[in-house]
């Protein structure tokens, strides 16, 4: 059992999937099923590197923000004003610069400005668009699966298994959330507790894989297309949830596959 828990597929796939399944079911009545994603991510972090924050590296900052995001969403729950979404997007952009701070400080002024603008835009974009899906659980979960798996697989090919597992855990947890909806043909409450941690962790993981590993920056464009595609795809909300999920997953996973392909062309097979 102990050896099994050291296997990357178990750490980044099976365990977060089952933990998310359990959390989504248990917290359904409290309308906090969306916390399943953060729970899946947290258990992967625990199994892979543990909750150590000395020294506060970029990867550890992602963990810190990933754990803080669900708390922030619970605090923000009473507020549904129009200003919340842009505020969250701006906070996402700021979080990207904070996470990459040490790397940015080592660049010349031009690169520092361009990189800062790029990562802030990517993270802000991702948070904004995923937040648009917060009231649409099937769309949010389908986008979450694609975003998590796409980011994870691309990061893995880009030579960071740690970031790869972070992404995979999001995909697995979102998959559990989606599976419950497909099997029960009913919608689980997603909300910001689902979309904010997922978008923030996935975006920060993707941008860190670009800055520290071999993920090409343009792979982020393919990943960034996932939430808008899930939002814009003309799938009737009245149709069966499993059908919506299959159609939405097919479209969003195609974007994820494009990101993985672009990374594979640059980085080749993952190191073993």
């Amino acid at each position: 059992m102990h050896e099994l828990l050291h296997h990357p597929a178990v750490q980044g796939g099976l365990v977060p999937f089952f933990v998310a399944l359990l959390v989504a079911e248990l917290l359904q009545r409290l309308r906090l099923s969306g916390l399943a994603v953060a729970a899946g991510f947290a258990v992967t972090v625990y199994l892979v590197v543990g909750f150590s924050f000395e020294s506060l590296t970029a990867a550890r900052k992602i963990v810190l923000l990933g754990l803080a995001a669900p708390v922030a969403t619970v605090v923000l729950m009473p507020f549904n004003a129009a200003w919340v979404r842009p505020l969250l997007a701006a906070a996402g952009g700021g979080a990207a610069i904070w996470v990459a701070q040490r790397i940015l400080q080592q660049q010349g002024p031009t690169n520092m400005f361009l990189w800062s603008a790029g990562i802030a835009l990517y993270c802000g974009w991702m948070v904004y668009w995923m937040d648009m899906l917060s009231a649409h659980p099937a769309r949010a979960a389908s986008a979450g699966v694609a975003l998590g798996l796409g980011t994870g697989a691309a990061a893995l090919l880009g030579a960071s298994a740690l970031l790869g597992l972070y992404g995979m855990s999001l995909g697995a947890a979102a998959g559990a959330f989606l599976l419950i909806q497909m099997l029960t043909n009913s919608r689980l409450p997603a909300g910001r507790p689902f979309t904010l941690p997922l978008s923030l962790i996935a975006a920060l993981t993707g941008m860190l894989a670009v800055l520290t590993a071999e993920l090409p920056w343009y792979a982020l464009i393919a990943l960034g297309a996932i939430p808008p595609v899930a939002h814009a795809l003309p799938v009737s909300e009245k149709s069966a949830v499993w059908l919506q999920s299959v159609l939405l997953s097919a479209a969003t996973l195609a974007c994820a596959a494009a990101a993985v392909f672009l990374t594979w062309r640059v980085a080749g097979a993952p190191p073993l």
Partner: protein
Amino acid sequence: MQKKNVFAFSTALMIAAGLPLAAHASNSYTVDPPHTFAHFTINHLGFSTMHGRFDKSSGKITLDTAAKTGTVDIAIESASVDTGFAKRDEHLKSPDFFNAAEFPSITYKSNKIKFNGSKPASIEGELTLLGVTKPVTLTVTEFNCGTNPMSKKDECGAGATAHIKRSDFGMKAFLPNVGDDIKLEFEIEAYKD
């Protein structure tokens, strides 16, 4: 008042004049990068022991063999990690291991060298890896000084080893499959300034 100033000025001059004399007691050396390497060995999945090294390093060493004191200040470029397989090197540079983009330098600093006779026997210092600083003692395995027959310059060379646990420095990815214990071996040559 004026007398006091003259006295203070004279004292300062005397101290300043004395400093170079004191400094001459120890010799300063600059590391010769082409002949200075940090090697490491680590267990891979319980099957074998893999070797790697860092290709780029720099630093300064001072030695006072008479007073049996000295200092070591070495910086190793994380991104110069070389295991003979480019894909693995990229992985080692990533946040999983040496996190070269965030932490471009690994440093070792010491001001406590223990001597056995006229030769250094061990170096007690601090290794900073991934932003974490821990005490690490190097055991000096060889030490020789003389004139380099090629460059005709005075230089010293040394070999040293140490053992660390990578988890102590927060490098925890793939434990325990990829080993925690790392053996470090240094070969250093340094020219007298």
